[in-house]
């Protein structure tokens, strides 16, 4: 009997994965370019305050960070401390350190040098003010109080 042999079914051609490496490489390059390795290990706890009037700091290389907060290791007490680069420091070190940081960037852009204070919400203004005085002495007058964006002013008030 002559039967018409039906083709079993229209076979789905196997999905070509040849371009998969290309896609992955594309993602890889994206992350390689945008990545910035975490440059310091935080020794203090920093929970940034909320604010609405914040501006972005454009040039990371022209910015120096000062961290203020209670030390993470319990043996150092709970009193807020200053962290410069990778170690805890005292107020007296700030001036010298900031000057050194400013020296390390090239001369044409030194006027754009900014210090960003990343302080914990529970830090007291006494310590922050001492840092401010040191910055004034070091002639580092551009300052940023680092903060997280709040959705709205109402949100900000609610957190009090």
């Amino acid at each position, binding site marked *: 009997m002559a039967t018409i042999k039906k083709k079993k079914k229209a076979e789905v051609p196997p999905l070509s994965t040849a371009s998969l490496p290309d896609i992955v490489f594309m993602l890889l390059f994206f992350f390689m370019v945008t990545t910035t*390795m975490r440059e310091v290990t935080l020794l203090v706890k920093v929970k940034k305050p909320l604010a609405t009037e914040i501006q972005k700091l454009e040039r990371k290389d022209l910015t120096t*960070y000062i961290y203020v907060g209670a030390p993470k290791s319990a043996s150092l007490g709970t009193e807020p401390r200053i962290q410069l680069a990778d170690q805890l420091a005292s107020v007296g070190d700030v001036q010298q350190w900031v000057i050194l940081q400013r020296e390390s960037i090239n001369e044409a852009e030194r006027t754009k040098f900014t210090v*960003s204070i990343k302080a914990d919400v529970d830090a007291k203004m*006494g310590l922050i003010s001492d840092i401010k005085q040191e910055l004034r002495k070091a002639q580092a007058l551009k300052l940023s109080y680092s903060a997280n964006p709040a959705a709205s*002013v109402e949100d*900000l*008030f609610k957190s009090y």
Partner: protein
Amino acid sequence: MASRKRAVPEINAGSMADIAFLLLIFFLVTTTMDVDKGLLVKLPPWTEDTGEQQDIKEKNIFVVLVNAQNQLLVEDEYASLEDVRRLAKEFIDNNGDGTCEGCRGLRDPNSSDNPRKAVISLQNDRGTSYKTFVAVRNELLGAYSELREDLSQRRFGRSYDDLSESDKEAVNEIYPQFISEAEPVKIGG
């Protein structure tokens, strides 16, 4: 001489994706994309003598005090954080001598002469919490940016952020920012 042209075996590229994935995951994990944002302020240059020698009329200074309990005193009256922005705007925009063209203030003779003379003085205690300080600073900056935004809408019909640099400067000229952060003192314990 038959084996001169030996075929080079093809390299299996199947594991290429795996290697790339490995690298990708490494960078995904180590990447930190946080852009630092904050309240930008400018500090006054260091001077040896701490006494303020500037002659500014009492009525042109808007004093905000924050004590160690994080309570606010604005122009000698208790205030809450919610009031600061409104009070500061009224003060800056007051235009007592009528020389400011863009202002729509109340023209109270006991408040500031014009925005170019108005100075906001923020004083805090050593015990004031950083959180409160930033919030108050934020409100004061907010007062200025709202006034600028307002003026820009009226004069140019556009948001301040969309203005050209020269227009921005024109607005800033009318509402320049004078916020002074005095050195902390002991205010009421």
